[in-house]
Structures are given as C-alpha cells and as structure tokens.
C-alpha cells in the first residue's frame, strides 16, 4: 500500500486509543468541568487490573470489564468522598486529584514493579488482516479502531439524543435550576464521574494490549488526553475524536519525517490550535 495511507492508518489507530482515554476525560473535565489529574492513574490502574484478570482467567473481555467496574468504583469513591464537597473550587479539586495520582503512582509501582507488562490478547487477534488494497495489517489495530468509533458514536447519541444526556448537559449548565426541576444533580454527576473513570480503565486495557504498561504512563496518558480534549474542544465528543485523530496522525507522521521531534510536534499542535482557536476545534466560544 501507499506508504502515506499506511502511516495515516497507523495514526488513526493510535488516535483511537487516545480517543478512548480522552472520551472519559471529556465527560469529567470537558463536560462536568471537574479537573481530574487522576485520569492517567485510572488508565494505568485499569490496564494493570485488566492484565491481572486476563492473565488469571485467560479471558480478555473479562479483564476489560473487571477493570472498568473496579476503577469505576474507585472513581465513585474519589468523587463522593474526596472532591464532591469542593466541586466548585477548581484548584482544590485539581490538587486533591493530583494527590490521588501521586499516591496511585507509587502504590502501582510497589504492586506491579517497574518491568513492562502487556495485557494478553486472544491469539486470533494477533494476526494480520488483508486490506482491500491487498496489504496486510494487524487485526488488533483495526479492532481498536472499530471499538473507538462504536464507543464514540454511542456516547454522542447518549449525550445529545437521550433524556439522560440532556439532564447531564442541563446539570452542567445550571445545576441549581436543574435541581429545581426535580433532578438529583448529585447522582447525575456521580454517574458521569464513574462512567468517565470506567472508560479510562477500559482504555487502559485496550492500550495495554497494544503497548506495554509501565510506571510513568499514567502521566503520559493524562497529558495526551488533556491535549486531545483541549485541541478538540472541551465537552465535545466529536471534538475529542478529531483531536485524538490529529494527535495520532501528527505523532505518526512526525516519526516518519522528523523522528527526533515527534513528541514535540504533538504539543506544537496544541499550541497552534490554541493560538488560533482558543476554545478548541469544536469547542463552544468562551
């Protein structure tokens, strides 16, 4: 296949993982405006839990579900016990979740060590599929791409086309007024936080199936998902998808044309977008 298309496909599949991580953050940070610095911790912890379950049971799906449930519950704890009282105090919430992430980093290092691990995937996923062009491409990357598209579409439909979604949006825009209409905003926010954390954990299992899990990735993925959410526009699912695709494409084409600067280019993208469109590509104007 044309080298260009292959690199583009690599970029999109890498972007799929960024999107899965960032989709949780776009709910918590983008929509609810709760700044969580523990999102990368949810990613890495989810990956480690998924790794442990999948290794013990031999079932990848069980690992992914187990990780989502466990980290979702942890998210519930963080939201209800640690940050709910201070939800309107942005800096305090940022500091509390920062503390959670630092503690989490050391606990995970103690529990899982510094050696890289990878979530075991079913052998039938570890093959190459033949693309319409006749080229072979790793099945796992295509599966992840499809997964990301499905999750993205479902999230968009739920938020924009269902009653539950409109309650969330109303709660974010004016929580007092929404409460007055009889909606328990506290529960709504808790649910969104749990779903966001669970998505990060799920992303950790997916990401940990393609790439290694190791200390330091909590920070890396937090940064990437912040870049994705900010580039795409806060709170916008299609925005996060575009942001993730851009970040994935820039880093892959960067590896081809300027490998030394591949990492820098990703952040240059954010600087560029913020300079011309401070609200992000699909963000609402401030």
């Amino acid at each position, binding site marked *: 296949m044309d080298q260009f298309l292959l690199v583009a496909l690599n970029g999109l599949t890498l972007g799929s993982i960024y999107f899965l991580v960032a989709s949780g953050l776009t709910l918590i940070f983008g929509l609810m405006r709760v*700044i969580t610095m523990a999102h990368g911790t949810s990613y890495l912890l989810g990956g480690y839990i998924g790794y442990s379950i999948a290794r013990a049971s031999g079932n990848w799906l069980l690992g992914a579900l187990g990780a989502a449930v466990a980290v979702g519950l942890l998210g519930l704890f963080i939201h209800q016990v640690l940050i709910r009282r201070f939800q309107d105090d942005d800096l305090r919430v940022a500091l509390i979740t920062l503390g959670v992430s630092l503690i989490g980093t050391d606990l995970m290092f103690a529990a899982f060590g510094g050696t*890289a691990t990878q979530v075991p995937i079913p052998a039938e996923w570890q093959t190459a599929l033949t693309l319409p062009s006749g080229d072979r491409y*790793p099945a796992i990357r295509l599966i992840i791409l499809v997964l990301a598209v499905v999750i993205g579409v479902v999230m968009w439909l739920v938020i924009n086309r269902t009653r539950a979604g409109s309650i969330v949006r109303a709660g974010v825009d004016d929580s007092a007024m929404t409460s007055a209409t009889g909606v328990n905003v506290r529960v709504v926010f808790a649910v969104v936080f749990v779903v966001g954390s669970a998505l990060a954990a799920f992303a950790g299992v997916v990401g940990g199936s393609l790439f290694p899990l190791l200390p330091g990735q909590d920070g890396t993925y937090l940064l990437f998902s912040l870049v994705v959410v900010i580039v795409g526009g806060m709170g916008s699912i299609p925005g996060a998808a575009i942001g993730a695709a851009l970040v994935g494409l820039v880093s892959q084409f960067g590896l081809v044309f300027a490998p*030394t600067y591949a990492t820098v280019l990703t952040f240059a993208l954010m600087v560029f977008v913020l300079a011309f469109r401070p609200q992000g590509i699909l963000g609402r104007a401030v």
Partner: protein
Amino acid sequence: MKLRNSRVITAAAIGSVLLLSLAACRGSDTGSEGGGGGEAAGDDTITIGVLATDTGNLAFGMDAAKEAINAVLKAEGDTIGGKKLEFVYEGTDGTSSSAQTKVKKLVENDGVDIVLGPVSGDEGETVTQYALTVPDVTFVNGSASPVSQTLEGATNFFRFHGDSAMWMGGVGDYAYNEKGYKKIYGVAEDYSFPYDNAGGFFSEFCAAGGDLTGFSWVPVGTTDYATIISQIPRDVDAVYVGLGGADAASFLSQAVTNGLTKPLVGGSIAVDPTALGGDANIRDAAIGTITGGPVPGSGYDTPEWNQFLTEIPTPNIFSLLYYNSFKSLYLGLKATDGELGDGQETLRDALKSLDWDSPTGNITLDKNNQGIVDNFITEVQANDDGTLGTVTISEDKGVKQGTTVYDRFESCPS
C-alpha cells in the same frame, strides 16, 4: 457558567505543571533507606548515594540496583573497618535533567561520600559533568555506558564495566561473516547510549563489507512502532534494534503483529532477560536475534558466575552491572579498611589498583579509570521449558576502550 472555562483551563494547567514537577521529584522519598539522609556523615559511617531509574522505559533499574547491592551486603556484611555503610536511594526517569536534580540532591543536601549510578546513557554524561565540579566526592558508575564518560578527565569518576561501543565488539564481524547479513536497516532510541552502541556495531559491520541502508532514530519512550516497521526496506537482510526496556518489548511484540520477518541484531539491552521474560508474545521476532554485551548467556560456566546466580538467580544487565560496580567499590573500601583518606585519595588509589574476578570475568581499570573487562556475543533461543533465553556464542577477554565517540548517523559511520 461558560465563564468558568478559562478558570478551569488555568487550574488544569497549574495542575499539570505540578504533576510534572512532582513526578520528577517523586523518587526523593521513595527509597531513603538508612539514616544518613540530610546529615553530614559521621566518622563511623560511609554514606553512599544510589541513583537508579524508577520511572519510564527503564523503570526496573531501581529494583535491579537494590537487588545487586543487597546481594553484596548479604554476602559481605554492611560494615567495613568499623564503619557502617548507609544508603540513600534516589529514583530518576532516565533523563539528564532528572539525573542532574537527583545527583545534586544526593551530594549537596544529603552529603553523601560516594555516588553509585546512574543507569542510563544521557544521565551518565550529566553525572560525569557534575563529578568534575565536586572533586571531593567519588563517583562509581552504575550501568551508564556512553563512550565519552571516561574520556572527560574526571579523576574522581570510575567505571567498572565496558562502554556501549565495547559491548558490540565482535558482533559486526559475526553478523557479516557468520550470519551472512550484507544490508541492515537500523532502529534505535535517540540518545547517547544507542549512538555508541550502534556505532560499535556498524563500524565493525561496515568495515567487514556490510552496508547500513538507513536509520530511524526514535524518541525514548516510543511505544507505537507500526510506522517505523513499515519504513523498513524490503531488501535488507536484517534489522538492527537499538532499543531498551519497554521500548524494546513494544518493538518486538509489534514486529510479531506487524509481520516483520527479518532477522534482528539487538543492541546490548534489546534482548535483555527483562524483554525476553515479559508477557507479550515476542517469540517469533526474538528467536535468532544476535547481540553483544556484558551479560553472558547459557553455556557460560565459571565458579564466580555460578556463585553469582545463587545470589541473583535471574540477573538482568542492570543488576549485573550494579553488582560488579558496587562489589568493586566494596572491595576498594575493604582494601583501605573503610578509610577514604584526604580528598578520598586513599579510596581512589585502592579502586585504581583493583584486580578481581567478577561473575563475568576479570576486572581492572585503564589509566582513565575505565574498566578492562570481558564481553559476550549471545543469541536468543527457545529454552526447553518454552521460555526464551540467550546462549553464549563467544567470549572476548580483556576488552579495552576505544576513543571514538559516536553521534547520530544514517549511513555507515566513518
């Protein structure tokens, strides 16, 4: 409510900056063992500051360093000439900046007598530069292996293992003459250690008649190699993989999923036991990979090596090098009966004249305080129990350091 956007972004930005800076400082409270921290060492203690990686693609370095030090202490005891050895451990992320922060903390805040470390190449260059500024502290390298470290003229700096160019000695000839590889494409991380490691290999491979068709230098910590693998020309005979730790594990597993069928030549840490013992399926890519380095494979049988394996049953390159480095320091201290001497000259003279049989052969120092050591060419094979391991192809005794320092190159180094 929309007005909150800017405040939210400000808080997120502050949070991110804090996270990054705190993550950089994270190790400072993780590993302080022993009471030497924060106070100048008394007459009855010798404080050793240990630098090792605990974050990033070489995050297992700290565990390896501790395992090595504890093995020596367990066998030899932690008191020399009535002085107790105390340790302050500092974790780094493998970068120059983190090594610089931590080594300064060890020397200037903790007041350590001796620094042991660091793990990674760029860190090593930084620590050597720093050593030049604090002549009263003795530095014993951990496992960092850029050629330049012992050519800087730091008389208080000692390296009891080979540099990364030495490690690939003999592999280039072997690849060309025995394996019959004529054209090779290179993939390596973009920092000092892989430059010298690849330089050592390709200078010999090209001199034998081989050709380097191109090179992808990737950032450390790159996890997605799909695009890099697709860049490898179809007409090469083999691929040189100068990656380490998690990066190497990523490459090997993706070489399998992306259907890369070329044989591999590994840099010295690409097919370390850590990469081979991981959970990812790297079998098809790893088997048959040849490499050179300080760690022998199976078939190496000396009393010292066998004794070492009873102390550290599954060594990796870092636990072996930290063991040899710390044991050298220990023997030096023992020779002076724990006496450091004026400006630590007594200890340094003892270290210079060391001559001992390490688990991997005899170690002495040249005039630059650089080790003259044995080196091994190994090949990855499947063990009888289905795991992957390395087998020793050849052993080179008394390897001495060259003087060529390599930088990034895309074709045969001149």
